[in-house]
């Protein structure tokens, strides 16, 4: 067909140059052209949230978004970047541990919206979590476990951040001690 158009998409940190029809949605291109089927096709009209991906960190329904419009943006899908993403992994762990996954069809979208939420609201209260989920349907759980999973993920990421801070200050301390020791040695050597 001659209506193909060259499009360059940056997905999970990798650049893909593809030729697509300009009316293809981002969901179709991800699933069919790039064979990334983790992003789910469900209601097809932006109501259920199963097809949620992040564009420059913000959640969008990929079934309602043209692939050509996503050019020049960082697209993050549930498959995640090569080498992993600590936030995604923490969210996925929390969803599994809290029983937030039954059939799992809403899960990729739920995980992505959680990543969006926690990136700008690292300590959300329950209302903020529920408001964030308003574009997402889960027919299995009754949402209780999903809310609990997001709370757990937020706590886990806070703890990890604190751990990083502690580690950073410990490293600073260690670096300081090394410098002190070096100075001491230099002083002794000079004596």
């Amino acid at each position, binding site marked *: 067909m001659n209506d193909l158009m060259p499009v360059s998409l940056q997905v999970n940190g990798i650049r893909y140059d593809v030729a697509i029809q300009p009316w293809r949605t981002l969901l179709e291109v991800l*699933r069919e052209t790039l*064979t*990334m*089927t*983790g*992003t*789910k*096709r*469900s*209601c*097809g*009209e932006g*109501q*259920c949230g*199963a097809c949620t991906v992040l564009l420059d960190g913000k959640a969008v329904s990929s079934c309602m978004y043209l692939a050509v419009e996503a050019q020049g943006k960082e697209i993050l*899908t*549930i*498959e*995640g970047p090569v080498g992993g993403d600590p936030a995604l992994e923490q*969210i*996925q*762990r929390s*969803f*599994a*541990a809290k*029983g937030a*996954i*039954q*059939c*799992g*069809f*809403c*899960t*990729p979208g739920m*995980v992505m919206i959680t990543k969006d939420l926690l990136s700008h609201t690292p300590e959300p209260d*329950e209302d903020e*979590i*529920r*408001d964030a*989920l*308003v574009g*997402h*349907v*889960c*027919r*299995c*759980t*009754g*949402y*209780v*476990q*999903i*809310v*609990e999973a997001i709370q757990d993920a937020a706590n886990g990421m806070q703890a990890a951040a604190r751990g990083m801070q502690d580690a950073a200050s410990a490293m600073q301390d260690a670096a300081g001690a090394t410098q002190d020791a070096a100075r001491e040695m230099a002083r002794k050597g000079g004596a």
Partner: protein
Amino acid sequence: MNKDPQKELRDFQVLGRAIPKKDARIKASGRAEYADDISMPGMLHGKLLHSPHAHARIVSIDTSRAAALPGVRAVVTGSDFPNIKFGNLPQTRDYLPLPMDTVRYIGEEVAAVAAVDEDTAEEAIDLLRVEYEPLPAVFDPEEAMQPGAPQLHANAPGNISAHSAFHFGDIDAAFAKSDYVREDVYETQAVKQGMLEPHACIGLWDNAGKVTLWSCKMSPYVTWRQLAMGLGLRPGDVRVVQTFVGGGFSGGKQEAMPMDFCAVLLSKKTGRPVKFVHTMDEVLTIGHMRHPMKIWLRTGTARDGKLLAQHCRLIANGGAYSSIGGFSMYLAGAMLNLPYRVPNIKYEAHRVYTNNGFCGALRGHTIPQFCFARDSQLELIAAELNLDPLDIRHRNALQPGDVTANGFRIGTFAFDECIERVAKLSGWRDKRGKLPKYRGIGFGCGSHLSGARLMGHSASAAEIKVQEDGTIQLTTGSTDVGQGADTVLSMIAAEVLGIEVDDVGFTRVDSQTTPVDPGTFGSRVTFFTGHAVKRAAEDARRQLAEIAAQKMGADPQDLVFRGREIFNPKDERQRIKLKDVVRWGAFQLGKIVSGRGSYAAADEKIDFRTGEGNLSPAYNPSACAVEVEVDPETGRVTVVGFWGADDSGTPLNPLGVKGQVLGATVMSIGHALYENLIRVDGQVMNPSFRDYKMPLATDLPKLADFQHSNVITWEPEGPFGAKEAGQGAGTGVLAALANAVYDATGVRLKRLPMTPENILFGIKRVREQKETRRP
């Protein structure tokens, strides 16, 4: 029952622990392959043409323009199939893969196309020319029962699709003896499963004449039998492979659908695999919704509220085809009295064919509708007799050891405790009658069974292959559809063999290799398949014990399996790793350890004609209280608190049980307040998630006010004391919400859903009644 459940729980090594679902991590990372995620080399894409008429004769179908479209590979219509009607029972075989000459509802599949991509297939659908001769249609079941009404099926005079009638005790004498009698009529609406994953399949007809269907089926063996029947093939030539299932809740994932037949036949014509995926519009328009019902209920009680008699007549709008409808009618009547003692019962149910999308099973099947009527009316009776709503329920509570009028033998049944647990959790006695205006609290109860004894196939089976590293491969015919079968069945096997859940591989169903099974419905999997897995694991354990005993010179009777080891607790020298036993047995003795087990519950028979017999090996009661706030300006109901309790026996995986009871509860909240498949002259008016409203996270109470508690019993019939958990908890929710709305507003709604407009009209009516009463 004499066992102490707490002690049994303490003795469990694996069971009783809250274990995350085995497939949770693969699902969380988007790597689980659902049917729509599968592609095959050379695969074609199929699309279906749907009838625009509610009832019409197909005069002709011209496929030439569609077939000539570049990229189109094949077209099929009804005449390409062997014209064999399929269904579960001889009297319910009324469905064809595609209709030969008559369409009976708007949305019924008429033809299908396979093309190189979905867009081309869709374009080809538009090029199919069908000449219809419209026939008179009927949409209301009571109209359809009238003489002279349009007839849907030649073999169903009066459009009666199914009829069920029982009489136990002496209903006339009991009403004559009653101090108080009342009659009410309740109506329920069409509700959809609402699973997120649309139906999807890939069909392949290979050159050896073998048919394979990959599909997201809950009950692959039902599909397998129906597919073979409708194609006129031997079941042995048909293979159904289950993919990951993105939610089921019964419906189309229980049976063979036109898309399944079309996929394989288009594959035969093209020599390629053919994939179909429904759009959500198709999912919501085609069949399998919950039966809308009109329920007339007459109840007689003694002055103290003791139930003496119940007479129920119900008419169900069955839609155009039977599906599982015959059983649907029996079930509502069979469960009519539960969880109460009602000595005299009369039941008359008609399922009526109409020119609507057909109805089938949906979580709870036909039990929630009846519980809505019964527990709503019980509240009215309590008010009339000036009784406390909890007292009237206690007074009539079915007790362990009871035999119901229709012959159900009740084992464990902690109903009284469920009521009290809910009263305590909800603060019922502090709240009832003391809440501010437009705030109210309501109570509702229900019941369910742990798998049904069916006329045809009831038994489940399991096989366990023990591998040389001490892990096992578990195969059953049961499916994990998200409910956690993969985990709880693995836990049962691990418990028996003294290994960990991670040591158990759980396979999805492949009709070529897994044991045949009735399917995943009726809350039967943990119970029936759970028993089969336990027995298969015991069989493997017996074989392993013999090998270990031979190796260590021990008595197999003395050996204990725990911590991936086999040992004699009386002799510390007799201790060996499980994997060493497997290897030694296989390498030195040539003994391959393979355990098999099955469970049939075939000890009793049901007479579906009279309704008499013990339907299930176990029954469970549930109770709940709901607190609502009603906005008198808009009629909008906010659910501010929910507290439930049920007796699921011994929860084998508390995390799984929690997911089931909360999921069932929220589905029922949607049924009561929001969901309604609106049909005007057979046309579905809201076939999208934008207009078919299901509960969202913001529609529900906060975590602190949303609680469920399991009353733990040890069910002697169950595997390790367990009973059902997936459906019972939702059955009382509809009435609880109706009773709460009444408590808040004085508006008694007997028709679902309880929409803001119905509540507003009701509030207006209540105000007018008050004003006219003033002097």
